[in-house]
């Protein structure tokens, strides 16, 4: 027996959002199944593995040496000319974070979920939603070639960027090309880097996106690229741009690639609605990724906790209606929505800037005292020097 035929809550997707939702639903008394289609939780990795320290404030997660491998002290953002600004952890606080091992991190979160009572089924694909008189009543799964039905009072879609649950349930998750990115990353070794910093390169080296270097140590780092789909004309551009970046940078001359990782990342505003009767969406599936950085772990975990708690409450009350689930909708938006929209607007502006404008931006930002490094202060400083760069953003200042 790998799973029973009935649960209070079925969570689809064993990433950080799904595991956290399953954990908090189980911890608060619900009978929970976490379904993961892959044969191993956390593997293969599809992530840049940078995470903000925000999660430790909101969710009961303790840094474990198995996955918390490098806490950085700052982020350096390089303009096209090579000039950079340093965003220091002392000033920017939890925005600057750590580099983790996602495979171990995902297993850690799944273990926490299991400890709190959730059951986990791996190598089990959800192939459709069950409906009873138009109402969602569970999921149909396939495991080792056999299909079976699992009834659930509540289904949580945590199935990521390519969420099927969301689409099956009728949510419009279609992304505009300017809200979608194509990403490729190499885990490189035999490097000699300063492990104290995560590095970001903006401009024409990565149209509409950026190149990142996230060090796990001085020797090993994730070196990756994200390109905005609306800027991509043909096939294989993420790979071509990343290879070109690595080719012309001396630091990579003696490096080797240990792993290649790819994937899609949304850089959109969040969905207007992530709940309906008997269903909730969380994490990348709900488009909770930060549209400026492309980071999804923190937001997914923070929302996952709220999602799990509300799921348990709904089950306890015997009310899994959309009306009851508004508690989740309201709860996660209170924590995340303002920043998501602000960062979405910042991204929308940034992608319009050419190399010359980006260099001006870096130049001005390098002159703003670090302790004042808020969006408002930055925009004000830019307005003083290059008013044409922030014309459309007057209302934010």
């Amino acid at each position: 027996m790998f799973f029973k035929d009935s649960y209070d809550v079925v969570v689809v997707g064993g990433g950080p959002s799904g595991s956290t939702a399953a954990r908090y639903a189980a911890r608060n008394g619900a009978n929970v199944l976490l379904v993961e289609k892959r044969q191993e939780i956390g593997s293969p990795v599809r992530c840049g593995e940078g995470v903000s320290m925000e999660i430790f404030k909101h969710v009961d997660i303790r840094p474990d040496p198995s996955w918390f491998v490098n806490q950085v002290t700052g982020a350096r953002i390089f303009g096209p000319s090579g000039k950079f600004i340093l965003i220091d952890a002392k000033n920017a606080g939890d925005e600057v974070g750590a580099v983790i091992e996602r495979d171990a991190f995902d297993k850690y979160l799944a273990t926490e979920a299991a400890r709190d009572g959730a059951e986990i089924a791996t190598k089990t694909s959800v192939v459709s939603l069950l409906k009873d008189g138009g109402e969602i009543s569970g999921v149909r799964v396939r495991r080792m070639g056999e299909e079976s039905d699992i009834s659930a009072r509540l289904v949580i879609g945590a199935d990521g960027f390519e969420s099927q649950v969301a689409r099956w349930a009728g949510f419009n998750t279609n992304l505009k090309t300017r809200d979608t990115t194509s990403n490729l990353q190499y885990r490189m070794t035999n490097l000699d880097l300063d492990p104290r910093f995560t590095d970001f390169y903006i401009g024409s080296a990565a149209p509409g996106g950026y190149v990142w270097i996230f060090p796990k140590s001085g020797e090993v780092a994730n070196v990756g690229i994200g390109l905005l789909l609306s800027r991509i004309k043909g096939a294989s551009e993420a790979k071509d741009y990343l290879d070109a970046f690595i080719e012309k940078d001396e630091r990579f001359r003696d490096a080797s690639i240990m792993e290649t990782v790819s994937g899609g990342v949304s850089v959109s505003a969040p969905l207007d609605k992530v709940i309906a009767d008997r269903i909730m969406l969380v994490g990348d599936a709900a488009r909770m990724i930060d549209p400026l950085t492309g980071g999804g772990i923190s937001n997914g975990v923070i929302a996952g906790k709220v999602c799990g708690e509300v799921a348990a409450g709904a089950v306890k009350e015997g009310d899994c209606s959309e009306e009851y689930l508004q508690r989740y909708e309201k709860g996660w938006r209170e924590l995340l929505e303002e920043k998501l929209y602000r960062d979405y607007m910042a991204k929308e502006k940034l992608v319009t800037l050419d190399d010359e404008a980006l260099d001006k931006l870096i130049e001005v930002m390098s002159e703003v005292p670090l302790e004042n490094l808020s969006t408002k202060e930055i925009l004000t400083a830019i307005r003083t020097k290059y008013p044409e760069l922030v014309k459309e953003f007057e209302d934010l200042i």
Partner: protein
Amino acid sequence: MIELNDDKCMHCGACVGACPANAIYLNEVILDFNDDCTDCGLCVRACPVGALSLIRTRGLKVPAATA
């Protein structure tokens, strides 16, 4: 129609999430295309490694299957 180069595919799902018709399903290492594909070619651009290509079939007659 979309042609997949298995040698290049990373099974990452970038094409799945980018598809406006939900015509692609990724099951671990198997990429399935269904009949909803409109040949828009977005997946070809979204694929980070160039594993997909759009084969023009317009004007070509596909012979009916015979028993």
